[in-house]
């Protein structure tokens, strides 16, 4: 048998793949969270950030990044499913009295949290990336009032060939999306499950890679708990802020600068 097939078919090999893909997802999730939190710096900043994400790299490279991320999830999912099936086969009959001595709740529910996360990831991509959730087609007329807004950088509208660069109004899309209570509820529950997945997963991946001992297990378990909660709070704060009215649609439709300029001109006159 080929070396690589042997590795990928072994229980440990698949667990190592799960840990490596888990690591990629863990890093991605932190970056994604920090990016999102820029919504608190104002509509200009979050819209400018979204513009940068879409235009920093050529379209092909952007697609490469997306495919790598989807591939990562696919490998993680494949390893999770095949290992779970193998594990079920190895233990067809349980105990009449089933006791748990020291395993944490989150460690025993990784499949449950994982499957709901998968459903969430599909919804999330349909909702904000492809924007095809029924009733939430943000590009459609009338759903988002100001679909496109001028790109603003360092407090100035960015011009190109004498025209304003227009960019998608991510700020209003997020606010509009989270004003629907069940959407917000789903996001908050899903990030809660992500927190659970990570309070076990973050430390567990070091074990799977063989990079943990008794002392570091205790430390990593604590880091994992902190990481999970930071990720939960960092993501959940946005729908919560929208629901409580703290975050709002940009009332100027991205035209705040022009308006202040106009006011200033009027003032001068």
């Amino acid at each position: 048998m080929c070396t690589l097939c042997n590795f990928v078919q072994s229980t440990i090999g698949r667990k190592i793949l799960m840990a490596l893909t888990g690591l990629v997802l863990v890093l991605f999730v932190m970056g994604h969270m920090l990016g999102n939190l820029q919504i608190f710096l104002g509509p200009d900043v979050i819209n400018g950030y979204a513009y940068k994400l879409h235009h920093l790299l050529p379209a092909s490279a952007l697609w490469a990044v997306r495919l790598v991320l989807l591939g990562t999830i696919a490998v993680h999912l494949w390893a999770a499913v095949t290992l779970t099936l193998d594990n079920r086969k190895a233990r067809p009959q349980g105990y009449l009295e089933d006791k748990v001595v020291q395993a944490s709740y989150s460690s025993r529910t990784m499949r449950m949290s994982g499957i709901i996360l998968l459903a969430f990831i599909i919804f999330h991509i349909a909702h904000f990336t492809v924007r095809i959730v029924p009733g939430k087609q943000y590009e459609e007329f009338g759903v988002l009032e100001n679909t496109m807004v001028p790109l603003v950088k360092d407090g100035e509208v960015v011009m190109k060939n004498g025209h304003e660069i227009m960019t998608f109004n991510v700020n209003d899309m997020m606010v509009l999306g989270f004003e629907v209570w069940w959407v917000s509820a789903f996001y908050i529950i899903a990030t809660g499950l992500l927190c659970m997945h990570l309070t076990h997963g973050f430390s567990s991946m070091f074990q799977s890679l063989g990079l943990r001992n008794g002392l570091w297990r205790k430390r990593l378990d604590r880091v994992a708990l902190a990481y999970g909660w930071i990720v939960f709070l960092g993501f959940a704060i946005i729908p919560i802020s929208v629901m409580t009215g703290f975050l709002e649609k940009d009332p100027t439709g991205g035209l705040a600068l022009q308006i202040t300029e106009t006011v200033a001109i009027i003032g001068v006159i």
Partner: protein
Amino acid sequence: MEKTMDLTLKVWRQKSANSMGAFETYAVKDVSEGSSFLEMLDTLSEDLVEKGKEPVAFDHDCREGICGSCSMTINGIPHGPEKATTACQLHMRHFHDGQTITIEPWRAKPFPVIKDLVVDRSPLDRIIQSGGFITSRAGSAVDANAIPISKATADYAMDAAACIGCGACVAACPNASAMLFTGAKVSHMNSLPQGKVEKDRRTLAMVTTMDGEGFGGCTNIGECEAACPKSISLDMIAHLNRDYATAQVKNFFKPVA
């Protein structure tokens, strides 16, 4: 005077590997709290024999916690509720008068029940066998101190070697994974200079056998460590993962076999 207790036992009874099993309930009276769990089962068996019934079959040998035979899950925990204690070393003072105790065989596909509480644990032997030999000088006996080994390494290998191959780790694992057992064996052999020479080959072979015998994978939940009568730690599983990854990488570039 020594205290005694009356107990209700719910015991798994199964005639043979192919027959259907079921729980039977028995009452045992006047169990001395100084007796061991196996002695308590002996009393039950004597009772049953007297009544012309089949005694409960269970594995046992040393009765001093070193052979690893006494496989039974007591109230949902392999080897019972006491930490780092085999069933034979478990004393009845840890139970109380009037208690109902459920006794089940190890539950794992690779450990089929042979009779009542006796299961076939030979897959563990086959994992050890596939580990193979160590390269050492044959002929006249080697001086005990010929190969210097640091105290830390010797202690670590000794901790790993404490594994008695009882299979409680497999029994405690919801995936019936044998990673703690295999991890202990691999860590023991791979950390000593005598075993280092065949480290990669041994690790790959033992993991292949482990998977082939139908044991599940590790989900790092730690129930095995809690059930292990010899306190083998999850560090040994991390060690196995580490040595396996290294061996696979080496094997990719140049077969280690």
